[in-house]
Structures are given as structure tokens and as C-alpha cells.
């Protein structure tokens, strides 16, 4: 197998300046140390040089990666110069963007050439709080607008909860008007608070309402996951996200915790399952030959019998692996079926309009 690219998701800290009601991440931990960072980059360089891999990306995740401050990312750039003299790493980040200001901003502008960042906002409900317990919306909005002014492509994420069902249209237009190029509506999982607890049926209902608003707006805004489903239904283009698509073995994805522990997905790091070892002990060759290294693509290739026979398998491909139950079905299955049935029934997707390529099994 030839590796085309390698994507590292690095969590330099699990500490966070926010206290989102539903967050899994806030657990006591050390930050990624400079010696460990150096070790990681040295090993990564040895691997990419040895295999002629030119496309290397690092997604700084957390916790809140901006808490590491400008000094840490200046060191990243110095080490990159030392170990990757001929390759430019593509740095991206997932952040609440509240700290995008001053020196941190200056440094990130130098580090993140591709100007790609993921951010998260809840404009209408106080689910994303500061450490002081106030709504972090004003700070996150300020950071988002500053990033847009600096030319960043912001992949915005909104966490869908029970109360989101009351404000579907408002959410759509708020994010569209904010000027971000895309919005991902991600369902809130494993959260017991009855005010916010989202069932699969709720999620399906939310997506149905969202589809109606999106359709009425002529599908102008890039709304995930609806857009990837619509692309597939109209042109047969396979879904591209790791949830609904098929992750490529040629572009492996590895998660590194602050302690250097390695996981196939950051969701597993949150749950501390499927740890493949530590960067201190393993080479990248060893990591990629670990049985769990390709867990995401393996799970999409070995669906449970119910998923394999489902008429919507090409749209869902069993969903996010981290949400699978013991049978291999996603927790969101019933909600997803609800939206797929709805979309299929829409007039614009009548038989004449669906030009499915049948490139993937079970195409509806």
C-alpha cells in the first residue's frame, strides 16, 4: 500500500478555557512537552522522507489548543524547519477561537498557511460557557469575525441538542449571515441533562426541518451532513466525511494525546479506548501496521448485517464508528433513517433526478 498523505490530529493539551456543558475533554493532564513534540516531529519526518510522502497535515486539537500560547507554536515552526526542510506541513486547528488575539493571532497567521480552522458556536443557548460560567458566545463571535477578516476558511460546527429544534431556521440564517463557508450540524451525544438531551428521533426531526429551510434557500449554504447526502443523491459522488464516507487507507489519520498516546480517532482518545501505544515507543511504520490504525476504514468495509442490508447504507455507511453499539449500528440510526426517508420522498429527488453511480454497494 502506498501512503499518499498523513494526517496527525495532535492534542497538545486537554485543558480548556471554556466549560461547555457537554464536553468530555476537561480532564487533568499534562501538556504536550517540547521534548515529546520534538520526538514526534523527528519520527514523522523520518517516516515521510522514507516513504516520499509530501502531504503532511497537523490538526491542532484539544482541549483548547490556543491555550498553548504563541511560544509553543513558534517552537513548532522551528522544529518544522529543522526536520522538514523540503516539506511544508499543513497546519489546521480546532478551537473555540476565544483566544484568537494578540501574539497568539500573530503566530497562528505565520503557522497556518492554508488558513483553515474549525470553530464552534451556539448562538441561542448557553451551552458553551466560560470558566466563569458566562456564555462564551461574545468571545467566540469576536474570534470568528477576526479570523474571517484574516482570510481564514472556517469550518463551523454547531452541536445539535434538544433545544435546537426550536430554532432551526434561525440557526441556518445566523450561520449563513456570519459569513462562514460551511456549517456542520453535529448531534450531541451521551448528555443526560433532560433540557438538552437529544434522541435519535429528535436528531432526525432536526435534520428534516433543516432540510426544508435549506431547500427554501435553494441549497445556497454548505450545510453538512445534508450537502454530502444531496451530492451523492444527485451525482453519485460518495460522501466524504469520516462518518458517512469511507476513510482512505492511503491517507491515514492518527491522533496523538498530550502524553503521546496514539489513537485512530479523537473520539476514542476522549473515551480512552483503542489506544495503539505511545509515540515514545513506536515508529510510524509500527503505528500504521497496528490492527487499530485503520479501524475507521475497516469498520466501513465490514458492516454489520443490518447495515449491509439497509437501503440507506450508501448514505450512512454505519455512521460514526465511535457511536456504534455492540451490533455495529450507529446510535443515530433511527434518526438518520427518518431524514433519508424524507429526502428520498422529496419531489426533486424523484427517480428521474437520482443519477446514482452505483459506485458503492447498496446505492438507493
Amino acid at each position, binding site marked *: 500500500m502506498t501512503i499518499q498523505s498523513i494526517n496527525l490530529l495532535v492534542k497538545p493539551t486537554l485543558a480548556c478555557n471554556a466549560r461547555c456543558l457537554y464536553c468530555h475533554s476537561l480532564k487533568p493532564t499534562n501538556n504536550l512537552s517540547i521534548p515529546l513534540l520534538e520526538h514526534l516531529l523527528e519520527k514523522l519526518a523520518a517516516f515521510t522522507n522514507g516513504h516520499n510522502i509530501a502531504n503532511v497535515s497537523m490538526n491542532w486539537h484539544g482541549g483548547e489548543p490556543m491555550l498553548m500560547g504563541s511560544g509553543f507554536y513558534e517552537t513548532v515552526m522551528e522544529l518544522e524547519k529543522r526536520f522538514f526542510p523540503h516539506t511544508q506541513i499543513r497546519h489546521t486547528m480546532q478551537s473555540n477561537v476565544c483566544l484568537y488575539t494578540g501574539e497568539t493571532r500573530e503566530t497562528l497567521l505565520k503557522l497556518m498557511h492554508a488558513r483553515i480552522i474549525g470553530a464552534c458556536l451556539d448562538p441561542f443557548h448557553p451551552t458553551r460557557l466560560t470558566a466563569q460560567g458566562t456564555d462564551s458566545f461574545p468571545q467566540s463571535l469576536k474570534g470568528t469575525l477576526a479570523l474571517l477578516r484574516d482570510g481564514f476558511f472556517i469550518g463551523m460546527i454547531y452541536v445539535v441538542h434538544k433545544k435546537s429544534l426550536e430554532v432551526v431556521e434561525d440557526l441556518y*440564517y445566523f450561520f449563513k449571515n*456570519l459569513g462562514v463557508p460551511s456549517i456542520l450540524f453535529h448531534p450531541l451525544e451521551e448528555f443526560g441533562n433532560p433540557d438538552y438531551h437529544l434522541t435519535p428521533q429528535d436528531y432526525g426531526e432536526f435534520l428534516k426541518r433543516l432540510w426544508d429551510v435549506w431547500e427554501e434557500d435553494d441549497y445556497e449554504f454548505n450545510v453538512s451532513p445534508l450537502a454530502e447526502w444531496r451530492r451523492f443523491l444527485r451525482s453519485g459522488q460518495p460522501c466524504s466525511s469520516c462518518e458517512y464516507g469511507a476513510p482512505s487507507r492511503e491517507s491515514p489519520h492518527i491522533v496523538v494525546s498530550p502524553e503521546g498516546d496514539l489513537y485512530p480517532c479523537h473520539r476514542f482518545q476522549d473515551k480512552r479506548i483503542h489506544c495503539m501505544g505511545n509515540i515514545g515507543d513506536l515508529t510510524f511504520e509500527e503505528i500504521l501496521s497496528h490492527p487499530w490504525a485503520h479501524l475507521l476504514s475497516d469498520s466501513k468495509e465490514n458492516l454489520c448485517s443490518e447495515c449491509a442490508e439497509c437501503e440507506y447504507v450508501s448514505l450512512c455507511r454505519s455512521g460514526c464508528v465511535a457511536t456504534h453499539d455492540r451490533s455495529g449500528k450507529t446510535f443515530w440510526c433511527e434518526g438518520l433513517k427518518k431524514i433519508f426517508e424524507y429526502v428520498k420522498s422529496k419531489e426533486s429527488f424523484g427517480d428521474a433526478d437520482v443519477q446514482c453511480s452505483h459506485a458503492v454497494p447498496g446505492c438507493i
Partner: protein
Amino acid sequence: MLTYNVPTLFLDAYEDTKLIVRSDDVNRLVASLSNAHADRIVTIQARSLAADPEALLKAPRTVPVDVVVGEPGAEYENIYRYSEVARKHPVRVSVRVFPGFGKVVKLAASLNFPVKLEIGELDRDLAAEIVESLDYYLHSSTLGQPIEFFHSVLLGFYHNHPLTLWQVMEEDPAELRFVTDEGKLVLSERLAAVEPGADPSTYIDELRGELLAEKGECSLCRFFKNCGGYFRAADRKFRCDDVKRIFQTLRNAAKELKHDYAQLVTSEERPRA
């Protein structure tokens, strides 16, 4: 490079900028074109129809002329005189929205001048007149020139590439500033009373941020990308219902146009019997 809209009196005061020079007196405008800074003049703006514009025919160079029709009762029939001027200079008629302005729009359009509406304070009656002009723009079979802001907004919807009213109405302080007759630098003529802030070029961006932070009507409006808070800049309590109806009409027209065009293409691709 920024463009400053200045009275002829202050022509020499703004160096290293492009200039729109304005005056009630056509002769002064013509004289400004002989000024040492004349090569920076991108438009001259005639603010009165009273004077005979014939002098413009003898201007030392060709430059776009913006004729502003400003008030009720003005002798707007004098727009006719600019037909001759249009042989030498491109002419546009900017019509301030006042009661009865629709007649001026039709006259200017019938003379084949591009038209731009200048909207100040907007009440329901004026909004109704704008809707009448919009109907004329959308359905007149003889119209040969754009009427702004309708035209750019329609194209924005058609191409799914919206321009804000700030851009369409030539009021974006990042590109254009206005100098009052007293020499005071302001955001625009319409927003002369609004505090521009330390850096006027960021005014719209900051306004946008404020309107989003309020999470009010603008942040949830389906036309915010076309409007950009243009009306709320002057009056935060401005009622947008009429403006939204105008945008909706233009959006529907763009959709209809797209649909008709797609049908035309399909019918032309179909093999002929």
C-alpha cells in the same frame, strides 16, 4: 486607492486619492477638469439641473458625469439637456427618493440613461413608490439601461454572488469617503451624522459584528448578505418589512430568469424534428 467625493472647493486638499468632484455649477465642474489634479478625477457630479450643461461639451477631457436629481419640484425635465452631453461623456442620473421620484426615474430611463436611486429616510409611501419603480425595471419592455440598486441586487441573486447595498450604493467607506461642503470628512452623505470610528474602512465590518452579536432581526434575515445592515446603520430601529419585500421580489425574478434560461438552453439542445 480610496475615492473621495469632494466639493470643487476642496479639490486640491486630497492628494493621492481618486476624486469625485461635485458642484451645483457646471462651469466649476468643467474648470476642475483643467486643474493640476484633474487626472485623479474619476467622476464629476452635477448637483443641480438649473444650469445649462452645454459647457460640459467643451470640457478638456471625457469623464463620467453623475447628474443628481435632488428634490421635489426640481426642473427635472432639464434632464433632456444631458442627452447632448451624453455624446461626449457617459451620463448617469442619480435620483433621490422623494415623493414622486418615480416620474424622474421613468424620464431618465426613457432617455436611455442608467439610473441610481439614492435612498435617505424611507417611509411606507416612499417604499411603495420604490416598488412601483421596481415593477417598471422588471417589466418594462423598453428599458435599456440598469436601474440601481435593483440591477446589481438582481444579478447578485442570479449568480448567487451577492453584493451588499453598501457596495451597490457606492457607500462602502473602505472604498469611498464623503467630504461635506464644510470640509468635514464623513462616512457618506447619508451617514454624515454617524460617528465613523478610528478607522472608517472597518466601519461596515464592525457594524456587521454588532448586528450579529445582537442576534436580532438582521442576524436572522435571509437578505442580510444582500443588505449588510445598510438601513440599520442610520437607524437601529428601522423597520425592514418593505425592504425585505423588495429583495424577495428581486430574488423571485432572478429565480424565474434562471428557470427560463435553463428551459431555453434545454429546448435549444433538443434535436429538431
